[in-house]
């Protein structure tokens, strides 16, 4: 489904991703872990099409298509969804408006008819209840005045409505208490299917108890330096990232 080859990304003069390779097959859940500033969010943003990140080398294929040729909205149309690490507040734009506009834009991209108001309302209500969010959040401005947890829940709620093919979750677990974490994980797990893939970025192994990944990758210094199964996450939690960095340095030196 997603194939990233030798990806190099610069922000300003600084190279952040330095030759990253990653392949995600349909139906798989991958997790990326790594220390602060290692480039996790950069990867997520580049996948979603953020223009301020400059891809200097490498390629990204999504379902065989050159993703880098597509505008962010086209990527969404193709089925990519990013749950932001820091969801943006947009005063004056109602949450419900954003979501309906988004859903219908994606439907249009796919040559489908827009959803009627009533149908949309029903869909939104159903997903909203699932996420334990009060209806009032729908009418409020996007993320404005939302608590940290509400923002993250709102991201997952949007994901539920938009039903992407590849969902990238950038630290959706950070700042959540255990109850909220359960709700968010349930929201993600409910969408798990053989047709859908996930890229779950996190600092904490905790989340991976709820969203059990097929693969865990360690991103250090702009490269994936180690990959493994879910037990790698537990090891990282116990031992930190130091040893992985050390291993990879030795590998480079040899």
């Amino acid at each position: 489904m997603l194939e990233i080859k030798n990806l190099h990304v610069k922000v300003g003069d600084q190279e952040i991703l330095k030759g990253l390779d990653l392949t995600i097959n349909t139906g798989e859940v991958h997790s990326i872990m790594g220390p602060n500033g290692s480039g996790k969010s950069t990867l997520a943003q580049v996948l979603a099409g953020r223009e301020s990140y400059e891809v200097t080398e490498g390629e990204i294929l999504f379902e065989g298509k050159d993703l880098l040729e597509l505008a962010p909205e086209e990527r969404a149309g193709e089925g990519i969804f990013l749950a932001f690490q820091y969801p943006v507040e947009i005063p004056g734009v109602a949450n419900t408006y954003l979501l309906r506009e988004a859903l219908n834009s994606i439907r249009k991209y796919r040559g489908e008819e827009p959803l009627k108001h009533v149908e949309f309302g029903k869909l939104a209500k159903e997903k909203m209840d699932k996420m334990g969010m009060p209806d009032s959040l729908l009418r409020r401005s996007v993320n404005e005045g939302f608590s940290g947890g509400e923002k993250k829940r709102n991201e997952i709620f949007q994901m539920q409505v938009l039903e992407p093919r590849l969902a990238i979750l950038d630290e959706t677990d950070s700042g959540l208490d255990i109850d909220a974490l359960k709700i968010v994980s349930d929201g993600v797990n409910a969408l798990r299917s053989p047709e859908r893939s996930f890229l779950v970025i996190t600092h904490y192994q905790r989340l991976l108890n709820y969203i059990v990944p097929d693969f865990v990758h360690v991103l250090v210094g702009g490269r994936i330096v180690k990959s493994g199964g879910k037990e790698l996450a537990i090891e990282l939690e116990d031992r930190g990232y130091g040893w992985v960095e050390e291993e990879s340095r030795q590998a480079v030196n040899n």
Partner: protein
Amino acid sequence: MDITLSTNGGGYREGYEEFKKNATGKGLAWLEAIREQGISRFSELGFPTAANEDWRFTNVAPIARTPFSLIRNGREKLSPRALKPYEFPGLETIDLVFVDGAYSEELSKTGTLPGGVRVENLARAFESDEGLVKEHLSAYADFTDEAFTALNAAFMEDGGFVYVPSGVRLEKPVHILFVTTSRTRPTIESPRNLIVVEDNASAEVVEQYVSLDESVYFSNVVTELVAGENSSVGHYLIERESKKAFNISTLRAEQKRSSNIRSHSVLLGGALVRNNIHPVLGGEGCDSLINGLYMSTGRQHIDNYMKVEHKSPHCDSRQFYNGVLDGRSRGVFHGRIIVHKDAQKTDAKQTNRNLLLSDNAQIDTKPQLEIYADDVKCTHGATIGQMDENAIFYLRSRGIPNETARDVILSAFTSGTIESMHVREIREYCENLLDDWFAQRRLAEKD
């Protein structure tokens, strides 16, 4: 013969001598006295220059150096169809229409009015409602230091007159429409409006300025609005002048005890625009909502000068002005709040937000608080920023196309000041104007 007004030779006074020979309301001594005082004061003051602190950011030299024709006759006849684009779909209004400054009986439509209500053109009211007009006209819009108000006083001939007696709720909004047709030479109009809403009465009044062509002309407007005790008045200024026009307009509102006014300005047209809003909260417990939206492109210059005067205790004023500036346009927001000595417990708030859509657009925003009472709450805040690219990316990442995302962000910014309009159809009309503005902008970007 049209009269020429120019700063050359004998100046505006020369044209005035000609004008007064057959001005409307001729022979009414009180009216002629106002006009005389107006021309005298204007002759003394002259057009303001940058040395005048109130005009520091706005250069009116282009007005001063343009000779204007004051049309005396030969005005174009318009079909009602020509006015269609300026109506509020679905809303029944009481219409006063002025074409090139003169009242059009055929195009106006007042219908049957509730008992005691008067809606007519001012020139007619000089005669038919002389007592009321004499009592209020020029009683509030002081021109000791206001050159343009003095100029208007000298040359005022016609405009809207609205009178709502005590206890009457005027259901239908009044729409005063000023249309300028295509002109070969620059013309001057001096619309003068008088709106008197008595105690416990209410009304909604729209002033709209439009142009059928991109001609050069000068609208020098003064509106006096009297809000009686416990009255509620909505005032809407919709400015859609030609892109070459000059529009200087002053709304002077006089508020009595417990009155509530809502002033909405939507400024879209004009080459050089100055919007003076001057409410005086003169009785206890008044409420003033002063909202505005200015949107400029090209080389437009739009200046907003607020002068909110708190004269009595326990009054609230709320100013929300938003500006969107594109191209090489320039905006000004000067927010003056004066709290007089007796106006204890004043609660005054002012917010001015600006969105710059181009690197060459510019805004000068300046709060000015003059507080002479000690127990008051006054806050002000101004922001200047660009479109939030993070927000746009967020919307796009959800599948919303770039152009739509930008429009959504823009309209979220602009609609804030329009939402508070009480009359839905007027609000929708304004929203459509904004949509047109966005669409125009997109077209211009494609070129």
